């Protein structure tokens, strides 16, 4: 699963911008502000960042739920069309798993209905060789680890545990045989002991079905647990990307370093950034991280002779793959 190979990405975004009217009605919030990203077949990419950094918007753009303001989403190199029929077919191949399985399941519907929903939307072709809907639903449930599947058919969401509910949501996605799973904080609302089981399931699915995944998370430990590659996002832009080992053991961007330092038991002296995650409707000029940057605050940037560029030059958006950091100081040898 090395990222160095030159396989064609199954899903990619090019110069993607998503903006919408800011909440107070003045100006526009640039939720995704120039992102390039590739997901190779069978690759698990972790998209890491704080809430409001645009990672969830990017995930929704990838699943076709949000139409980009500019730029493209490409599957197998082909730009996604936003005409309703083409979009429906696209969505079948790129499935979304949401954070809160309790909310993601309609409380009035049984497990069977929840999983069969996708099949009913896409009709006969979605059965993919299975004799009937029931067999396909049973297959998806057991692939998601709910065995024997028949035992779960008639249960309602409230009769399941949190982990089981998330498995139902995953089964509902698997039933359409997607190429890519986009998971938005898939374990954030689950208990600690269940978390590992769901992550294991995602690794198993990659191994058995070659499923690619983009996992959106604020949890660097999750990236360490399952991802091949990490992209760290800050204020709508990816600020550092590379393999998990590269980014998490030798971070180059001060933001990644700060995120890593506050993970409990990291051993390092925590670099706690002050202030809140800034507003995407008011992205600072120059380097967007500058107002919170510990390198700038400590005078390190000045010493390296990049302070002027930090103030005046917005680092270029990073390429879609490989090892990069969007920091003027990181470019200094």
């Amino acid at each position, binding site marked *: 699963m090395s990222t160095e190979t030159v396989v064609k990405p199954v899903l990619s975004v090019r110069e993607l911008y998503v903006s919408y009217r800011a909440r107070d009605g003045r100006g526009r919030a640039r939720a995704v502000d120039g992102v390039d990203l590739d997901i190779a077949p069978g690759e698990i990419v972790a998209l890491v960042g704080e809430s409001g950094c645009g990672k969830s918007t990017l995930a929704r753009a990838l*699943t076709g*739920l949000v139409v980009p303001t500019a730029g493209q989403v490409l599957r197998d190199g082909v730009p996604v069309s936003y005409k*309703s029929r083409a979009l*429906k*077919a696209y*969505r*079948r191949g790129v*499935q*979304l798993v*949401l*954070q*809160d399985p309790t*909310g*993601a*399941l*309609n409380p*009035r519907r049984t497990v069977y209905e929840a999983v069969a*929903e*996708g099949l009913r*939307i*896409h009709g006969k072709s979605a059965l993919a060789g299975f004799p009937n809907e029931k067999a396909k639903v049973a297959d998806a449930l057991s692939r998601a680890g709910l065995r024997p599947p028949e035992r779960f058919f008639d249960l309602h969401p409230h009769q399941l545990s949190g982990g089981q509910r998330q498995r139902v*949501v995953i089964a*509902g*996605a698997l039933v*359409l045989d997607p190429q890519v799973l986009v998971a938005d904080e898939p374990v954030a609302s689950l208990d600690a002991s269940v978390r590992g089981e769901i992550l294991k399931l995602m690794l198993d699915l990659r191994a058995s079905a070659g499923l690619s995944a983009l996992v959106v998370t604020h949890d660097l430990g999750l990236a360490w647990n399952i991802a091949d590659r990490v992209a760290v996002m800050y204020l709508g832009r990816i600020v550092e990307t590379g393999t998990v080992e590269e980014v998490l053991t030798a971070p180059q961007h001060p933001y990644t370093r700060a995120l890593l330092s506050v993970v409990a038991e990291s051993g390092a002296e925590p670099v706690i950034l002050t202030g809140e995650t800034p507003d995407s409707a008011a992205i600072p000029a120059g380097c967007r991280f500058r107002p919170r940057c510990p390198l700038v605050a400590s005078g390190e940037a000045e010493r390296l002779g990049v302070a002027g560029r930090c103030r005046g030059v917005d680092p270029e958006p990073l390429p879609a793959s490989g090892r990069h950091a969007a920091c003027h100081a990181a470019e200094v040898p």
Partner: protein
Amino acid sequence: MIADFRHRRAGLVGLAFLVLTAVAALAAPLFISAEDLSAVFAPGVPRQAPSGHFLLGTDAYGRSMVAVTIWGARISLTVGLLATLLAVGIGALVGVAAGHFGGWVDTVLMRVTDWFLVLPVLVLATALASVLTPGVGTVVIAIGVTAWPTAARVVRAQTLSVESRPYIERAKALGGGHWHVMRRHILPNVMPLMLAQATLTVSAAILTEATLAFLGLSDPTKVSWGTTLQLARAVGAVSAGDWWILLPPGAAIIAVALAFTLVGRALEQVLNPRLQERM
């Protein structure tokens, strides 16, 4: 849900009364003949005070007030229910569409709704009833067209709340289109509320029907509570103090409207968890 309803005594009383009224209205042809209701072959002397033979006296044609009142329930209930069906139907359509599509669809639909909402119902209904040919159908349309905005507002609010649930996003991510989301997720969630709203609308519709009939905008040959009152007014029963002609249809209107309201309130409380907490 049914168990919850059983604990609301007022709702139960209302429901029992409605069932009784409906049964009486349905069974009316079994014990009231055409002659009993005929203006020409009426069985009694006009405007006779209550007696052993005519328990509630007779009306201006000499018909038994008991028979007239029971028969009136047929028209009143029919008009009330049909008009409600129309109003809640339009309301649901507009409300779900506005809540689901949002944006300019929502803006346009809600402006239209607001416009209907501030129009004086009676004036609009009167205008409609006088333009169209008088009759029960006209009254149904007049009431239905004026009563839907409230339903639309309520349904839209509920639609918006359902729209924000993650399972809607999940359905869209699965590839579900507008029709799928509305039919499979929004309608089932809006339905209970529509039911509660409908029971409240029925009472308003019955009152409006009576008012329109009283103003002479309904079919005068059909016996309803409104036409009975109108006839009483026309022959001067009010000034003569013939209370037995005025009281039965008036009381019936109030009682049925109240019963529907009681049932509606109880349903609303059972179905709306937020109201339930406050009890």
